[in-house]
């Protein structure tokens, strides 16, 4: 058992559901010594002790608990009120067992099962019984006397245990174990009885020997055949396999049956196949995690557990094969039965429905599937690709969207495919991204389809330097781009693209005529290269042609000439007209080239606003101080002062301090 009980079972109210169902424990039941304020915990475990739910009991004292056939937990309170909970602790409803019970309180209560359903029997404080045969259809009956005693069973147990009556035996569970005690079925007994000579036992032996490649196999087989009991032997093995709980034993019995079958001409395969299916189901639910140790006999009687629906699917029970009921109703009915039980896959059921040819029902069923991702594969299979696309988008899983997209791409013609994309922006961006890497041509078609001229323009612009190498090809691509930009009413981009065409052609000509590298330079760099190469005339021509603003031209020339250290030309240039960028940049750039001499020339021409800065740059602190004092600018004064670091600056610093105090006096 997987549970981790803190208390002894005897301190709890215990109820285990029939058919290997779950176990409910109500810890800390009401006993006199306990303070009433401590609320007990109601816990529900699977038969293997995996906790399903635990909740705080907030109602009154409980006398007894039990499970109905619908797997609802009935809790009988002291006052006769019965609270009904679902498997997962969800409160369903409550009902009362009448006034008499309320007055006399409940001494004891039992839940029992009849073919009508599950009933509640109550022994009241007045030692009278009140019962209801079916909790679903409440009719109270008062019984005059004690009914006949139950048959009892004797079994030696090691520790505190709790017994659960089952259809074909009794479940015994304690803190540590959970066992099933039942009468050994006849077939099992015959096969496994010591020294049994039953045909099944012989067949099992034969098969074992066969596996050992021993000739004894043949002897055993002959013995059965001579008795003419081979059919019976196979049947026995199949049946016994059904009663076994251990898969390895099941396997060897079934293997024996299959072995025996080979020697029979006409053995109907149904029983063998059905047993295999049944066992698969049984083993699946006996699994530790599901924990419903159902026996073969119980399986047949049990169909209400949610899992059973899936089992039904597997066993081809006619749940979705009722063709006369409307899809809507069937879907709703199935949903009502299953609710939102975790572990139930609606998509599986839908797949089943689709397998039965009921596509619409399958779609309806899929609506109940909470995970949109799960809906997609089936929808694709059913050729509902567009629906699949929206579901995939809903799931947020781009891989899923992509799968559907590729599906759609193959399924639809190009036009329809693009139209579908248009309505799904998320899918569209995803597909665009894909095309950018994989199918550039498709990308272009996509933009064409949408009349997205802006993006088309960008596309060809990119192609002009990424895809084309020859200058003619590049210019042609630019021309298409420019046309597209015009169509997109993006005049700016169109003009800029045309300028680029002109520049490209010109750069080509420059390379031919002057040599060197011009292609792919920006306009600015082209002009710079010309100046550095000494082609001043061409540079001027170019800047006129492309309307380079004065300021840029000045910055450009200044930088280029300083880089060349052509101080003569720079001076000539500075005097060509009044600088649109002032003369401080001239000072700065000369200082950068460590040419203080040239820098000083320009410092004198710097306008009054930047004079102090310029003088400080060339290191003339004293004069800077004079200018600052003249300007009476506090900011400039402190700037100069911060530059008074050398030994010779002491006098200047004093001068500034004096000027300051004077300014303050005024």
């Amino acid at each position, binding site marked *: 058992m997987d549970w981790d009980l803190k208390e002894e079972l005897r301190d709890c109210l215990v109820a285990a559901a029939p058919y290997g169902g779950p176990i409910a424990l109500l810890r800390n039941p009401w006993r006199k010594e306990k303070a009433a304020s401590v609320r007990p915990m109601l816990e529900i475990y699977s038969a293997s002790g995996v906790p399903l739910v635990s909740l705080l009991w907030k109602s009154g004292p409980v006398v007894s608990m039990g499970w109905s056939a619908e797997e609802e937990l009935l809790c009988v309170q002291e006052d006769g009120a019965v609270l009904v909970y679902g498997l997962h602790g969800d409160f369903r409803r409550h009902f009362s067992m009448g006034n008499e019970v309320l007055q006399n309180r409940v001494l004891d209560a039992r839940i029992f099962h009849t073919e009508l359903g599950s009933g509640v029997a109550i022994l009241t404080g007045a030692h009278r019984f009140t019962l209801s045969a079916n909790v679903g259809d409440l009719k109270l009956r008062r019984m005059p006397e004690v009914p006949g005693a139950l048959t009892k069973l004797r079994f030696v147990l090691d520790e505190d245990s709790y017994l659960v009556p089952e259809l074909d035996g009794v479940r015994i569970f304690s803190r540590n174990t959970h066992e099933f005690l039942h009468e050994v079925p006849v077939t099992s007994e015959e096969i496994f009885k010591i020294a049994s000579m039953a045909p099944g036992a012989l067949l099992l032996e034969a098969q074992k020997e066969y596996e050992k490649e021993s000739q004894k196999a043949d002897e055993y087989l002959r013995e059965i055949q001579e008795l003419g009991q081979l059919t019976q032997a196979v049947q026995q093995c199949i049946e016994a396999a059904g009663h076994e709980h251990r898969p390895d034993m099941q396997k060897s019995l079934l293997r024996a049956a299959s072995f025996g079958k080979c020697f029979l001409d006409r053995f109907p395969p149904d029983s063998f196949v059905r047993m295999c299916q049944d066992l698969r189901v049984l083993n699946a639910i006996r699994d530790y995690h599901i924990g419903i140790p159902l026996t073969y006999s119980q399986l047949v009687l049990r169909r209400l557990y949610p899992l059973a629906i899936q089992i039904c699917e597997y066993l081809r029970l006619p749940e979705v094969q009722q063709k006369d009921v409307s899809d809507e109703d069937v879907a709703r009915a199935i949903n009502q039965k299953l609710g939102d039980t975790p572990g139930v896959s609606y998509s599986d059921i839908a797949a089943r429905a689709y397998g039965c040819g009921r596509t619409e029902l399958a779609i309806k069923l899929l609506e109940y599937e909470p995970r949109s991702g799960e809906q997609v594969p089936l929808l694709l299979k059913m050729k509902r690709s567009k629906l699949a696309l929206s579901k995939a988008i809903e799931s*947020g899983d781009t891989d899923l969207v992509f799968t559907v997209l590729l599906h759609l791409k193959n399924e639809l013609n190009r036009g329809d495919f693009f139209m579908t994309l248009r*309505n799904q922006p998320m899918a569209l961006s995803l597909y665009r991204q894909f095309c950018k890497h994989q199918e550039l041509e498709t990308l272009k078609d996509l933009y064409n389809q949408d009349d997205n001229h802006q993006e088309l323009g960008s596309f060809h612009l*990119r192609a002009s*330097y990424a895809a084309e190498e020859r200058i003619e090809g590049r210019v042609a691509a630019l021309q298409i781009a420019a046309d597209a930009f015009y169509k997109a009413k993006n005049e700016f*981009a169109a003009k800029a693209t045309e300028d*680029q065409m002109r520049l490209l052609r010109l750069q080509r000509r420059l390379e031919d005529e002057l040599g060197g590298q011009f292609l792919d330079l920006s306009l*600015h760099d082209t002009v710079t290269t010309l100046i550095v190469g000494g082609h001043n005339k061409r540079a001027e021509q170019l800047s006129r042609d*492309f309307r380079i603003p004065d*300021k840029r031209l000045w910055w450009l020339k200044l930088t280029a000439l300083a880089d060349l250290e052509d101080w003569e030309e720079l001076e000539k240039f500075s005097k060509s007209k009044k600088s649109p960028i002032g003369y401080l940049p001239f000072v700065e750039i000369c200082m950068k080239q460590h040419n203080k001499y040239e820098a000083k020339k320009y410092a004198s021409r710097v306008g009054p606003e930047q004079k102090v800065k310029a003088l400080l740059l060339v290191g003339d602190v004293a004069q800077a101080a004079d200018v600052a004092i003249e300007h009476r600018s506090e900011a400039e004064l402190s700037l100069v002062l911060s530059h008074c670091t050398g030994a010779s600056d002491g006098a200047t610093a004093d001068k500034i301090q004096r000027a300051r105090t004077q300014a303050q006096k005024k």
Partner: protein
Amino acid sequence: MAFPHRPDAPELPDFSMLKRLARDQLIYLLEQLPGKKDLFIEPDLMSPLDRIANVSILKQHEVDKLYKVENKLVLSSNEQLCFLVRPRIKNMYYIANLVKADKLAGRTRKYKVIFSPQKFYACEMVLEEEGIYGDVSCDEWAFSLLPLDVDLLSMELPEFFRDYFLEGDQRWINTVTQALHLLSTLYGPFPNSYGIGRCAKMSYELWRKLEEEEESETKSRRPEIGHIFLLDRDMDFVTALCSQVVYEGLVDDTFRIKCGSVDFGPEVTSSEKSLKVLLNADDKVFSEIRNEHFSNVFGFLSQKARNLQSQYDRRRGMDIKQMKNFVSQELKGLKQEHRLLSLRRCQLGMRGEVTVPPADAAKGLYFPRRDPWLLVGGGLLWSQMGKSTSTFCLKIFFLWTIKRHPSRTSNVSSLFVILADIGACESIMKKKTKQDFQELIKTEHALLEGFNIRESTSYIEEHIDRQVSPIESLRLMCLLSITENGLIPKDYRSLKTQYLQSYGPEHLLTFSNLRRAGLLTEQAPGDTLTAMESKVSKLVTDKAAGKITDAFSSLAKRSNFRAISKKLNLIPRVDGEYDLKVPRDMAYVFSGAYVPLSCRIIEQVLERRSWQGLEEVVRLLNCSEYSFAGMWCGGCGWGCHLVLVCQCGAEATDPTDMTKEDRASSESLRLILVVFLGGCTFSEISALRFLGREKGYRFIFLTTAVTNSARLMEAMSEVKT
């Protein structure tokens, strides 16, 4: 300086488990290919891998040689090849080419492809189309959460930003969902959730669905992390676009912190070796200054230096044995101080007030075989120039002594740290002197506050004309656009023209990208604007409208920054000087000029525990449909209910038995997980750490990647390849 947390601030969860998980899974995957194998690693995965499993662990699991997955083919002689890659199509072609070449040569080997963090169908399809799907086995290394620091988890997916916010590709959302699921399995449940943004909402909903499907036992656990906040990067581009002036952000802007560490290349260390420095909370000194405004670090360091001085004085009069002892005890601390002192110089250098020592002095210091007193002299010279302390030269001498007594040769690496930092200062200087850093900051502040727009525009124009930096220029243009609700048509055209002239015509595509992402737009003429707006909102309600995304990108992404700023009071009123030493609000991370919008939103929602009262802000953010607050019952054991409150203000109804006390206790939890979808900056992290200290919260950050303005701009740029 590094204010301590309030005594009632909660402890952070231990995220090292995530590393262990990732490592174990990787080892398991490697062991799936028993025997010797060569490992091909995607360059982007190298740093994250390094934080999880070092080379010796890989060797232990029979990895023979390591190769980078890059364009050229490598000749490997091993019989088994393992590829550790991101799920990218180009990687698939790389692998396919390698396998096909083997086939041609008649060679059979075993190939295994490990996708991280997950595989995509498109990748497998390429393998199939290339005809090698049967030859390789594919696996997933679900490594999506790298703890970069005690409070910072990164998915290391920088491409998330471009893929989602530009291309509209949602494939990483699934990865985010899985990461959130893993977090809640290990550290959950998270009872209160808030979020804003399209992606945030989608991730949240998918994550919740996943949680409900998988009944994990977390539901019955007591929550530790009380709140989770999801935020899309496009809610606040402004903060990410600003220059960072908080220490850690500054280092990131200048040197690029990669996967929690900085690499100082040879040009910085002035030696052949490059040096890697880990930056995280383990480094005590670093953790004291990381969240500080850079102007503060000076005073702090002077104090530290004085302490060091007195420590050094103690050392005098020791014999060699005592000194060794002293070395072993103190050196660890000193090492950190070195870094501190040198990095301080970086900052001062940036402010343009202090001259950095000449490179020669630093290089001279490098050769300890010269007279040590010369070294000390060099250091003194430097300290004089830098108005600095004498501690630096003392340390140089100190280290030199250690080298003479090489019992602890490993400690000499400290020397490299110092030299690296000197180099670092120089390279900062080189970068920053092209245009004055202060002027840049001034312009940014003007843009944030919305004054002198003309002046700022011409500043940007000059920036472009002078070819200062393509990325910086773009950044300033975007900042202007977002703060001004788009550029006026004349500026829009002229700035773009200037930019194209400076940097080439392919940037027409960059501009098209920026426009689509809403980063750089043109102001729509005033009168048609409202009409457009109503058209868009109509489109929004009609979900079937196909062109919705296109419509969105161009029209709906009006940033409304000015209005939001006013509503949320993002620009603190200036009364006197903002004392950066004693920050009074989160604005300190931007010199007191601006409270980061993203952090303000988080602050406001946490204060209210809902979006109530923020309706107008949410509308201005174009997020009326994408803001949510959810409460999630963790205590009921079974069916978990989720209250999703769409549209702010709607009253939450609680269908579970969650008692008032339960709810109150979950709300009072002070650990808050903030998820940035599309990246967050160190400035935002610092601001929220500050908020946490003020309010007794602790923030945990989960980001798709740590980002900054340059990374954002690069993601949007088209470059010729």
